[in-house]
């Protein structure tokens, strides 16, 4: 196990509503999420469905990203829920599961995310800026939503991009 291929559309698992993690730990899933995220150049977050696991878990690390404001370092969250959000900002997002395109997506500027750590600790993460955007993007994956489901104008919101490199391994 370890590094997994990142699944791309039209893989059906990407469109499914993922199943709650519940209270059980899942060390293997946590390691796979982190390893795959780390192995993917430029990747700052990964949701379990992207590696074929339809469970509500995500890994995220926006450390060092130029747009990062508040930063919680490497976080893995089980059953994350956005409980508060405010503000609205459009930003251009790329997604490893949607090759060749990027899209302008409006996201809340500030969010509070509740969930659990892999060790079972209750998490309440308040953040903003790029980390808030990343949380919203990854939580969308748990609900089967991709950037293409979030655009409001095809003409101005969807852009071609160079294909991101395949994850190593």
């Amino acid at each position, binding site marked *: 196990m370890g590094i997994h291929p990142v699944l791309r559309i039209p893989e059906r698992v990407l469109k499914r509503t993922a199943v709650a993690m519940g209270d059980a730990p899942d060390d293997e899933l946590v390691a796979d999420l982190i390893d795959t995220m780390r192995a993917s150049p430029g990747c*700052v977050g990964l949701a379990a469905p992207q590696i074929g696991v339809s469970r509500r878990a995500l890994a995220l690390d926006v450390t060092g990203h130029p747009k990062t404001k508040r930063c919680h370092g490497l976080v893995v969250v089980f059953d994350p829920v956005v409980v508060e959000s405010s503000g609205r900002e459009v930003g*251009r997002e790329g*997604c490893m599961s949607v090759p060749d395109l990027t899209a302008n997506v409006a996201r809340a500027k500030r969010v509070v995310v509740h969930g659990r750590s892999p060790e079972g600790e209750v998490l309440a993460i308040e953040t903003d800026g790029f980390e808030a*955007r990343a949380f919203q993007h990854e939580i969308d994956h748990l609900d089967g939503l991709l950037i293409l489901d979030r655009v409001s104008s095809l*003409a101005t919101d969807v852009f*071609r991009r*160079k294909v*991101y490199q395949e994850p190593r391994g």
Partner: protein
Amino acid sequence: MSGPHHYAVTVIGNDRPGIVAGVTRALFETGCNLEDATSTILRGHFSMMLVISSDGPQGTLEASLAGAADDLGVMITVKPVEEAALDFDAPTHMVSVYGADHPGIVFRISDALASAGANVTDLTSRIIGSPEEPVYALMMEVAASDGKGLEDLLTGIASEIGVDVSVHPIEADLL
């Protein structure tokens, strides 16, 4: 030559519901495969461009589309095109230009881009504002190696022709 042939298809006509369905039905029934397509409404005219692939004879495709054109009251053209490389210059900058409408805006800006070796990868323009004071708004995605140089170049041209221009990098964050 083996394998499917590629064709460029253009459609233009007075806009109404059902044109996309009518054209794509004709293509589907002729066994064509749609590849990339773009469509918009230009000053009330429906317009669409498609690159399609087809194993069948060109004559069958042309006859089928001619029938659709008659039924829909639109003009359709079909031209064989060579298969092109699929790698492309990814756009690096968005160029916005706007100002009082007058002839030559697109030419002067795009000529400057061409001279700088920048490739226009997408372009949309609209005449907005009132009939008395029409404003021309032009948005382009370009693939350019030097964004700063591009901005300086276009700012110079823009002041010559009396329009505003802005250049900003296209930066997508991989999430």
